[in-house]
Every structure is written in structure tokens, then in C-alpha cells.
């Protein structure tokens, strides 16, 4: 095990160590668990940065820890693959996690589950790192589930709240539905190719018949859709906001939910061999992007708004990877991680200041009260709505450009539309929270969050400001593309690098869309030049549709959940108890009735005994002479 491997294995080691320590000896560590935990994460962040440079100036490598399963011809190792894709993700994940950890120290201060919280959080970081570093599908699947578990426990962190626990369960089960497909995909890969190692799979995948490749791709996609909260499995993410806000920031904005995108990017070869699957990805992405943005328009819960925006942003990424411009997808993934993490943390800071209030109708005019939060929030908002020079602009624009470039004009239009809506809802949020007259009830003391929370915000805000510039000069000449495309080079249908169109126009269009959104929000909520209520009533159906998230939950309940439940009850009450058990007991009944009849033969009458005997004799004789 040389130094490189050692570093690689140390990265997940520290979070794991933390998880175990706080988990088992939590009550001895108390608040130190927070600080130590953050330190652990920072260490692994540093290590991953080192790895990043090792890879950037060297090349990727794999390192094997031990053989996990060896069942005759089914062999799986616990081993990592370190390439540009994974190191980028690594740096991002560890970085954001470090910030979130630090932030959490303040946010979760004097929560009785402090240590437990950090144990879960460390466990999550560990699982996420392993998910990224895994070099075979089974290991990927393992940690795919593991991060799901972490999100389950973290969403339901405040287990006394039924809504929280329900949300956690929902998240886990919906994810399971996705993983059902994922698992089948993994099995299919194994039985078709005979191994689960990335390298072999990707090199041999082309030998399979197309329909098989498509099937595999779609099954994997099912997993991705579940994890990344894409249509039709996105229902769990809004509810997931029941968890502590830093968790939402880390898991449900920055890292875990984007795992789906990472998966597709990781399996880009499989997808690039199956255009149909890629198109499915594209369509799902488009639909989701729109639905997310649309549902976000009318929500009042600030976290839910951001959650919907996450859904729709991931939709963007799906569109990107769907058309094969994985670089753009990854680019947006990273920048989104930053500014969405920022947005959530700031939202958390707002909550903290408002002592848990989430309804934006009960806010307003907070700007003066919590400046740092407000400013960082606005930065995040601008980034989200794709206003230059903030990171969102570059990444989103890259995607839009590639869409247009690929000739998927419909999806380009959707993209622009979504950009517009995005800008609108996020600034609706900002205006309602920070500006306008205050609806905060008087006896509530609003205050700015402590340093330990604001510093991460500032850091992230700065990142959101500058990060985008790695996307320059435009397209495949950009630093990031140059770096990352080395990994995607062998997927052949990725976005071409031609500039046969006025790209600045496109950028202009998207920027204008963004600005338009902001302006309308401004008109609505600051100038109040329209009567919103009238508007509401005018577009009532659409409004309700949006407000109730297209009734998807209700539909699921009606179509799947309830019938299933009733069927189960039927099986238990009717089939099990009535039919099968009834049959068993029925036999017993029958036997005992018969025996009660048989006993009557022995009626105590000597006469009848003699008759029986004689009859017997006659029967025997008859047997011979009638025969």
C-alpha cells in the first residue's frame, strides 16, 4: 500500500472514525464532537485536495483495500478508482461538508442530539466519499444505499415530529423504488458482462446488443432518478426539508441528490452507446426542470421553495448529461452545489434568526436585521438566477448553449423558461423575506447568526462569486472542460465544440430571462403594482396546480399506496386467515365431527355389538362367495 493509496484510504477513514466515535461514545464527547468532527472533515478535505493535484498533474489510479465477496464466479473487491471525475467530486463534497460541519456547530448548538447529529453527518460524508471513489457497481450500490440511509436518519433527526419521520421514511422508500431498478441494472451488468468493475464493464459494454445496453442504462437511470429526485420520483425531496437545514444544504442540495448526475456521468459510456436512454434522460431532465420551477413559484415555505429549485436545477444537469455534454453537467453540478448550499445555509440562518419560522408571509424587512445573511442570500439568489458574473450564469449558460447547439430547441426553450421562472421565485423569496414591510410578530427578537455560522456563508458567497470563471474561456477551451473532458473523451456523442452560432446572443437571452424574472418579482412584491389576489383568482387552476405541486402525492396515494394497502389487508384477512387457515382448521373440524359420529358405534348395547360382529362375519363370507 503505497503513499497514494494511503492518502486515498485516509479520506474516508476520518469521517468513518468520527461517525463511530460520536455514535458510540457520543455522550462523553458532547460538543467536542462538533469541533472534532469538523476537523476530521477538514483533514479529509485537505487530503482530497492533495489527491486532486496528484491526479491533475499525474493520472488516475485504482487501489484495492480487500476482497469483499468471493462466491465462486462472483467476486467483488472493496477498491477505489481515482480519476478526474472522482477527485473533482471529492474536493467538492469534502469542501462543502467541511463548511456545513462548521456551520452546524452553531446551528445545532444546545440540541440534545448534538453528538448523534455529527455522527450521522460524518457517516454521510464517509458514505458519499466512498460512493464517489467506488470502482465497481456493487460498491457503488452499497454506498448509494448508505447515503440513502444517512438521509433517512438525518431527515428524521427530530424523531418526535411525525412529519419529520414520515418524510424520512418516504425518502428512503422512494429511493428504494429507484434502487430496485438500480439493483436489477447491476445484476444485468453482471450476468451480461461477468464482472462489475468499471474498467471492464465500460470497455466491454459495446459488445452487448443495443437493446441490452439500453435496458441497463434505463435501469441505472431509475436509480439516478430516485436519488436525484427527478420526475416521477421527486416527491420525497420537498418533504425532506423536515430535517435540520444544514442537512438539507449538504445532502439535499449539494451532494447526495446530485449523485444521480454523477452516476450518469460515471456511466457516460453506457449512455453514449444508447441514444434512446440518453434521450430519456434528456426528457426527464426537461420535465423535471419545468415541474420543479413551476411548483416553486407559489410556495410559502422558504426551504420548500429552495428544494423545488434544487429539483429543477438537477433537471438542468440531467438535460446536460442527456445530450451528452457531461462536462457541462458536471460544471453545473459543482456550481449548483456551491450556490444552493449557500442558499440553504442562509435560509437556515434566517430560520435561526427567526427562531424556526419558515413561512415567508411572516417575514419581510429582515435586511436591516441580518445583513450578512441577507447579502449572502442575495448573492446565492443571483447565482441561481444566472446573472453574471456569478457562477450560476456560466454553468447554466453552458448547458443552454449545448442544448441549442445540439439542436434540441424545444428543451432550450424550456431551459430559458425555467431560467426565467427560477429568477422569479428566488427573488420573490428574497423580496418577501428581506425587503418590504415586516410581518414579523413584534415579540420575536430577530438577530443575526453567530460568526461560526456566518463565516461559512461568506466563504460560500465568495466561491459563488468567483467559481464560475473556471468556465472561461467559453466551452471546450475552458479550464474546467479541458480538465474534465479527459475523462469523457471516449464517449463519442458529447457536445461538439463548434461555435457556429452567436453564443453571446444566447447568453444574452438567458440573462435577459433571468433579469426579467427578477424584475417581475420586483414589480409584484416590492412595488405591488398588481393586485396579487386578483391575479391568483384569475389563474386559479394554474395557481392551485402549482401550489399543490401538481397533486403528485395525491395521485400516488390514490393509484399506488392505498390499493397496495387494501390488497395487503385482503391477503391477510381473506387469503391467510379465511382460506388457508380456514382449510386447515376445517379439516380438523371435519375429523372431530367424524370421530364424534364414529364413537356412536360403541353405544354400549350388547345387542348392537353382537349385530356388528355378525355383520362382520357375513361380510367376510360374502367376500368369498360373491366374489
Amino acid at each position, binding site marked *: 500500500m503505497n503513499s497514494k493509496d494511503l492518502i486515498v484510504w485516509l479520506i474516508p477513514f476520518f469521517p468513518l472514525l468520527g461517525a463511530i466515535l460520536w*455514535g458510540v461514545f457520543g455522550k462523553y464527547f458532547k460538543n467536542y464532537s462538533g469541533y472534532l468532527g469538523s476537523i476530521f472533515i477538514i483533514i479529509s478535505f485537505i487530503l482530497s485536495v492533495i489527491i486532486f493535484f496528484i491526479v491533475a498533474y499525474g493520472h488516475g489510479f485504482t487501489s484495492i483495500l*480487500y*476482497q*469483499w*465477496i*468471493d*462466491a*465462486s*464466479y*462472483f467476486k467483488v473487491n472493496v477498491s477505489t478508482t481515482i480519476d478526474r471525475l472522482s477527485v473533482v467530486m471529492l474536493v467538492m463534497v469534502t469542501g462543502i461538508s467541511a463548511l456545513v460541519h462548521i456551520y452546524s456547530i452553531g446551528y445545532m448548538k444546545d440540541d440534545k442530539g448534538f453528538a448523534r447529529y455529527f455522527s450521522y453527518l460524518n457517516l454521510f460524508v464517509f458514505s458519499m466519499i466512498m460512493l464517489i471513489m467506488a470502482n465497481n457497481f*456493487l460498491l457503488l*450500490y*452499497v*454506498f448509494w*444505499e*448508505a447515503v440513502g*440511509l444517512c438521509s*433517512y436518519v438525518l431527515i*428524521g433527526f427530530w*424523531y*418526535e*415530529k*411525525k412529519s419529520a*419521520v*414520515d418524510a424520512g*421514511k418516504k425518502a*428512503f*422508500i422512494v429511493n*428504494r*423504488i429507484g*434502487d*430496485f431498478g438500480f*439493483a*436489477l441494472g*447491476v*445484476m*444485468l451488468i*453482471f*450476468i451480461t458482462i461477468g464482472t462489475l468493475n468499471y474498467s471492464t464493464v465500460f470497455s466491454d459494454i459495446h459488445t452487448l446488443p443495443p437493446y441490452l445496453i439500453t435496458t441497463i442504462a434505463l435501469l441505472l437511470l431509475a436509480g439516478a432518478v430516485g436519488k436525484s429526485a427527478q420526475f416521477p420520483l421527486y416527491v420525497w425531496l420537498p418533504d425532506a426539508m423536515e430535517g435540520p437545514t444544514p442537512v438539507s444544504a449538504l445532502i439535499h442540495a449539494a451532494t447526495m441528490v446530485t449523485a444521480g448526475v454523477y452516476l450518469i456521468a460515471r456511466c457516460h459510456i453506457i449512455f453514449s452507446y444508447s441514444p434512446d436512454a440518453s434521450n430519456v434522460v434528456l426528457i426527464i431532465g426537461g420535465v423535471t426542470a419545468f415541474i420543479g420551477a413551476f411548483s416553486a413559484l407559489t410556495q410559502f415555505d422558504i426551504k420548500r421553495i429552495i428544494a423545488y429549485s434544487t429539483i429543477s436545477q438537477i433537471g438542468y444537469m440531467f438535460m446536460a448529461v442527456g445530450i451528452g455534454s457531461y462536462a457541462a453537467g458536471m460544471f453545473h453540478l459543482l456550481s449548483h452545489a456551491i450556490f444552493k448550499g449557500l442558499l440553504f445555509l442562509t435560509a437556515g440562518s434566517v430560520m435561526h434568526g427567526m427562531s424556526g419560522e419558515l413561512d415567508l408571509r411572516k417575514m419581510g424587512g429582515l435586511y436591516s436585521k441580518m445583513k450578512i445573511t441577507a447579502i449572502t442570500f442575495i448573492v446565492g439568489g443571483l447565482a441561481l438566477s444566472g446573472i453574471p458574473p456569478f457562477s450560476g450564469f456560466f454553468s447554466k449558460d453552458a448547458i443552454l448553449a449545448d442544448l441549442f447547439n445540439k439542436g434540441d430547441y424545444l428543451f432550450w426553450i424550456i431551459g430559458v423558461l425555467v431560467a426565467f421562472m427560477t429568477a422569479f421565485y428566488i427573488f420573490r423569496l428574497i423580496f418577501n423575506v428581506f425587503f418590504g414591510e415586516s410581518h414579523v410578530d413584534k415579540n420575536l427578537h430577530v438577530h443575526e447568526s453567530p460568526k461560526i455560522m456566518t463565516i461559512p456563508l461568506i466563504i460560500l458567497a465568495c466561491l459563488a462569486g468567483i467559481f464560475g470563471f473556471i468556465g472561461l474561456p467559453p466551452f471546450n477551451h475552458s479550464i474546467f472542460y479541458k480538465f474534465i473532458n479527459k475523462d469523457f473523451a471516449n464517449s463519442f456523442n458529447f457536445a461538439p465544440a463548434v461555435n457556429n452560432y452567436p453564443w453571446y446572443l444566447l447568453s444574452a437571452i438567458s440573462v435577459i430571462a433571468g433579469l426579467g424574472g427578477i424584475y417581475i418579482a420586483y414589480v409584484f412584491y416590492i412595488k405591488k403594482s398588481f393586485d396579487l389576489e386578483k391575479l391568483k383568482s384569475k389563474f386559479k387552476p394554474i395557481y392551485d396546480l402549482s401550489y399543490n405541486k401538481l397533486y403528485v402525492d395525491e395521485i400516488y396515494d390514490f393509484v399506488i399506496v392505498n390499493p*397496495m*394497502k387494501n*390488497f*395487503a*389487508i385482503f*391477503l*391477510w384477512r381473506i*387469503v*391467510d386467515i379465511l382460506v*388457508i*387457515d380456514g382449510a*386447515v382448521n376445517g379439516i380438523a373440524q371435519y375429523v372431530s365431527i367424524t370421530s364424534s359420529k364414529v364413537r356412536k358405534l360403541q353405544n354400549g348395547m350388547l345387542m348392537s355389538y353382537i349385530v356388528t360382529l355378525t355383520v362382520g362375519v357375513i361380510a367376510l363370507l360374502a367376500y368369498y362367495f360373491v366374489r
Partner: protein
Amino acid sequence: MSIFLKYILSIIIFFPLLSALLLVFINKKAEGLLRNLATILSLAEFVISLFLFIYFKSNTYQFQFVERFSWIREFGATYFLGIDGVSLFLILLTTLMTFIALLSSYKYIKEHVKEFVILMLVLETFMLGAFASLDILLFYLFWEFMLIPMYYIIGIWGTGRKVYSAVKFILYTLAGSLIMLFGLITIFILHYNQTGNFTFNLLKLYHTNIPLTLQIILFIAIFLGFAVKIPLFPFHTWLPDAHTEAPTAGSVILASVLLKFGIYGFFRFAIPLMPEASIILTPVILVLAVISIIYGALVSIVQKDLKRLVAFSSVSHMGFIVLGLFAMTAVSVDGSVLQMINHGISTGALFLFVGMLYERSHTRLIADFGGLTKKAPILAALFMIAVLSSVGLPGLNGFVGEFLILVGSFKQYTVFTIFATSGIIFTAVYLLWMFQRVMFQDITNKNNENFKDMTLREIITVLPLILLMFFIGLYPDVLLSRINPTVVHFVNIIEHNKYAYNLIKAKMGLFNA
């Protein structure tokens, strides 16, 4: 030492019986002494059985630690013991679980302690004997008498409709095993007619060639015996009752060891004795298995009684194991063997936790719980781990076996496997929902206001299982490397017979396809 190793199996089998005899002479008033002594003896038993693991040669499928003595010359029945990779771990599981069951029942069993511990030890002896014997008559002796102590345990220390459940349990299983006996005797006689000498030696009987039609009949006969034990879908209704009413220790043993005998019987007897028939009937059995998986899971969702829920869940889990076994690929069989152990550990642990809940609040209705995490964090954490291992969460033991089973069966029986895989969703649904209603949310029931957390003894009781869950989940090779040779051999036999079967099929045009 060498002598010790030579007769180690007999020692392991009869040590508990002797311990029971020892306990007979202790005054029944001295309950504490009885309990401690029994527990210590069972622990010693477990330690002894570890020698098997240490001295087990993992590179061969041959039977090891073989002992053979003449027993009944008239039938060529011999006292013939030996273990391979499969029975090794089942024996270890048995000894461990008996120890744990005894440890778990310190508070639960309040009356007739003496009888209880004696019965438990007797039961252990017979279970071990059944796993170790390679002589069909010997096996049957152990196999059927096993029911009796279990029957007492359910009927005496059970709860609610215990008598009904106990009688149901014993009649169900007895009927099954008697019909099985019929099949076994017939094979024995057939072998005599072919070779002219009586023998119950399994390894010799393997070579009996039975005409196909008769084979199918016999397979069905023997199938009934084992299917009831497993239990497979239409024969499962004794299980919920037995599990629900049995005392914790009883449920633990029942779930973690007794159910395994069905699978073990298929593995060791039914399939190798009647390969063609089992190949022909595989589709039927797989259908039943898949039905059990989904049916069990769905029914568990709507259960109101914790134990009943776990019972149905183990119907579902055993379905997986049957699927893996009858898919008859090396991987899937590896998986099911591993999963037998896993199911033993996970479900055993679940029953232990349910038992703890019952001891504290004297109810098993899910509705009566809720919000216990606040009162009993340790219980919650460990219970959670057990639940997750039963859900088949990667990193814990359940996952490895389940995945091996599925991936192994996927090629031949894609459709079945897909249906089976859908089971993982339902499993998550019912277990997590149960856990939420029991452990999370606010305390609704006043009785749980002063709910105690786990005592040291209880922690010690479950800790081995929890550790094993992680260990097997993270490093299953320790088991697989020992199981695999046996399984590969088994599969080769079947493959060979598949060939033979195809010849037969060609000859008699069984299926025109």
C-alpha cells in the same frame, strides 16, 4: 486433543443433553443457579463448537470430523456423523443462538425455570444432531423429536392462545415429517431392491436411481415435510401463531434454527436424492417461493402485532432463500446458505428486541408503542441496526446473501428474480413503518412514560448478533470461503443431473420443447 477432535461432533451433540441431565438433579427452587448454570453450559457448548470452525478444512467439499459406528445392522443404519461447509455454520448458529436464547430469558421466564432450561438444552442436542447426521434414520430421529421440546416451550411458557398454537405447530410439522418418512423409507427400500443390501448411509443412497415418475411422487412427499418447516407459502399458517405465542427464547430458536431445517433438508436430502424430480418441479417451487416473498412482505405491512409482523417477514425472507437454493447456480446457492445464517441472526435479533419491548410494557401491539427512542436510546440504536440488517441494507449481513441470491438466480429465472427483487421495497416499507410507529414520534401510551433502557445483560445478549451483522456484512469471505466448495460440489451434481435429465427428457419426450 486428537481424540477430542476425532469425536468432537458427538461431544458437541451430547454435551447439552448431559448438561440437561446434570440440571435435573438441581433443586427447582434454586432458579438463579439453574439459569446461570444453563447459560454457562451453553456458552461452553458454543466455545467447544468453535473448534469445528478452527479445525475445519476450507478447501474441500468432503465431509469432515466424520464418525461412524454400527447402530442397527438389520437396516444398515449407522451412527454416521459428519459436517461440510453448510452444516458447519448452521451448527455454530445453533450453539450461539441457544446461548443467546437462554441469556435472553432471564427475566421473561418466571415460572418452571428448571423445566425450561432443561428443555432448551435438550432441544439444542436434537437440533445439532439433525445438522450433523449423515444417516437418514439418525437424521429423522433427531429431526422429529426436535418438535417435542419446542412444543413444550411454546405451550407452557407461551402467551395468549398458546395451546392452540402449540398443538397447531406440532400437528402441522408432524404431518409433514410423517409423509416425509414415507418418502424416505421408500427410497431406502428402492436402494435395497437395486443393490440388495439395506443402508441408510446418505452418501450411498445418493446413488439410488429412482424412476422419474416415482421420483416426482417421492419428491412431493418429502417436499411437504420440508416445505412446512420452511415454511413455504401455502403451508405457512402455523408460523405466525407459533411465533406470536411462543416465549422470546422459543421464537428466537424457532426463527433462527428450526426454520433452517427445511432449507437444509432440501439441500442435503431432497435435491441430491431426487435431482431430476427437483429439476422438473423447480418452476413450481420457485413460484411458491416468489409468492412467499411478496405475500409475506405485503401481509407484514398490515400486521398490528409486532411478533406476527416479524413472523410474516421471515416467511418472506425464507422465500428468498428457497429461490436461491432452487435456482441452483453456485452463486445463488452460496447466497442462500449465507442468507440462512443471516436470517438466523437478523430475525433472531428482531425477536429478542420484540421480547424486550414485551417484557417492559407487556404488549406486542404496535399501536401501544411509540416514542420509545427518547426513553431508550441504546435500545433504539441497536434495534435500528437489526431492522436495517433485516431490510438488507448494504454493509450489513442481510445484503450480501440477498444480492448473491438475486444475482445468481437472475440469469435462469429473470422474471422470478425481478418479482423477488421487488420484495426489497416492501421489506423497507413494513420494517421502517413498524420501527417508526414503535420507536419514533411522541409517546402516546402512558405506560411507556417510565420505559427502561436496556440492561447490561440485554446488551450482552444482542451484542454478538449486532457485531456479526457488521462482520458478515463487511467480510463475508470468512463464511463464503468455507461454504463455497460444498456448494460448488452440490451444483456440479445438479448440473450433471441436469444433463442426465435432459437425456431422460429426450427419451420420454416429457415436455415437447
